[in-house]
């Protein structure tokens, strides 16, 4: 197989384990390209990609843009803060206006869950979801699993604990789908108020004690507390959250094994992750960022390649 089963990447839920393996194998090749003296290939030189970001983003947007440029695509960037969206334009009008400039692919981040699915039904271009509200963030899950595969050799059979604000996290949901499709065991851990009701129906273990979660897992994927999405108070204070759910080096050293610590960024240092753990020997946070470019190159290449 050298073709994805889909022409859009909207979520991990919609793709197969074979798709994920193909993306990983292609990303291996692109990772090698990124380590060459000239880190660029001409594959997408006749493709124009629009990065449409209705929500703030630093690393995802930079990572997509770099991936597109490394593939020689033409790139246009759009962010809602300085656009006609402020003047009341609808999503479909905004995107159709961009597409009438002969754009082949759209990478979109939007605050509403399902926005990229709506777009995919209504436009011709390939759509890549770069995060839709609290729903999915497929490329982040792919790069997380790719980083685990790189560090531990395989994802299948590994125990991964996702720790933190699961309720507001699109990374958590995509990670759960992706890791389970690849045969890993998944646990979620956080304060009860930040775990969605019925999360166990996804087949994940639920744990409220972070030390127990660390003892169980091979990989701890620590998520950011998303204060900007929290309309009400879910815990008394950041200090209290940090005391009960924050991870530091002392906790990692106490374990009888060496686990891998990940974080999708941006880190709230001293809240969910202390600096000594974020920058320590357990951490592969910077490798995740590096792998993000290779994974996004693979996704864009495979989606664009179909006739």
């Amino acid at each position, binding site marked *: 197989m*050298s*073709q994805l089963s889909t022409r859009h990447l909207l979520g991990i839920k919609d793709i197969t384990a074979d798709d994920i393996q*193909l993306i990983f*194998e*292609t990303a*291996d*090749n692109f990772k*090698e*390209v990124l380590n*060459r*003296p*000239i*880190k*660029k*290939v*001409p*594959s997408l030189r*006749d*493709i124009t990609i629009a990065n449409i970001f209705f929500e703030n983003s630093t690393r995802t947007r930079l990572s997509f843009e770099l991936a597109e440029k490394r*593939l020689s695509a033409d790139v246009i960037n759009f962010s809602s803060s300085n656009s006609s969206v402020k003047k009341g334009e609808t999503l479909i009008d905004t995107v159709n206006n961009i597409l009438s400039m002969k754009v082949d692919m759209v990478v979109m981040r939007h605050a509403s869950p399902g926005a990229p699915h709506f777009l995919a039904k209504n436009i011709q271009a390939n759509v890549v979801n770069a995060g839709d509200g609290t729903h999915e963030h497929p490329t982040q899950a792919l790069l997380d699993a790719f980083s685990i595969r790189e560090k531990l050799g395989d994802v299948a059979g590994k125990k991964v604990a996702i720790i933190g604000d699961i309720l507001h996290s699109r990374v958590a949901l995509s990670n759960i789908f992706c890791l389970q499709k690849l045969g890993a065991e998944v646990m979620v851990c956080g304060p009860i108020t930040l775990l969605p009701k019925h999360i166990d129906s996804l087949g994940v273990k639920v744990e409220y004690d972070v030390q127990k979660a660390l003892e169980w897992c091979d990989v701890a994927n620590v998520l950011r507390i998303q204060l900007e999405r929290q309309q009400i108070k879910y815990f008394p204070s950041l200090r209290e959250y940090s005391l009960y759910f924050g991870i530091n080096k002392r906790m990692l050293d106490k374990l009888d094994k060496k686990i891998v610590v990940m974080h999708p960024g941006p880190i709230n240092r001293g809240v969910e992750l202390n600096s000594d753990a974020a920058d320590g020997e357990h951490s592969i946070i910077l490798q995740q960022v590096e792998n993000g470019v290779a994974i996004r190159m693979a996704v864009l*290449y*495979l989606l*664009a*390649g*179909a*006739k």
Partner: protein
Amino acid sequence: MQKRLVLDQQQISIILKRFCHQLIENHDTFDNTVLLGLQPRGPIVLDKIVRLLEEISGVKVPFGYLDATFHRDDFRRRDFPLKANETKIDFLIEGKKVVLIDDVLYKGRSVRAAMDAMIAFGRPQKVELMILIDRKYTRDYPIMPDYCGVKVNTLESQYVSVEWAEKGFEKDAIWITEKA
């Protein structure tokens, strides 16, 4: 299916030895020479050449594998993208003499893509092409081998299948086969 034998194991072995002697003649001590096998089928020829060269002259020539998938000119013109293979080149080719090695030369498009891909590792001083089978009168690009095993006449409806003992075949052999 009709098959015609082009080269048997002994003939292939003679050609590979000839290649090595021609390389020694042209590259002397191989001080400034590197060999690159073009993925996916060039590396197997390359590995044999490297081994033979060491046996004959005792030199270990630096070598690598080059994949040109991302540089092909038929991307988005096929029904689905080609799967890439590993590129493994642990050195720069800046100022080097490079010998590109593949099994069959047909349209010349893969070699063009490979030369494009190769430039990412530096500007070579000189590039040569070594090919086991040259399919005559089929070229789309002005590309000719410097080292050639045999030239064969083929039709568009035929393909050249290269069988290696290492790949599970009974013995090394090269055939011309009618496409199914």
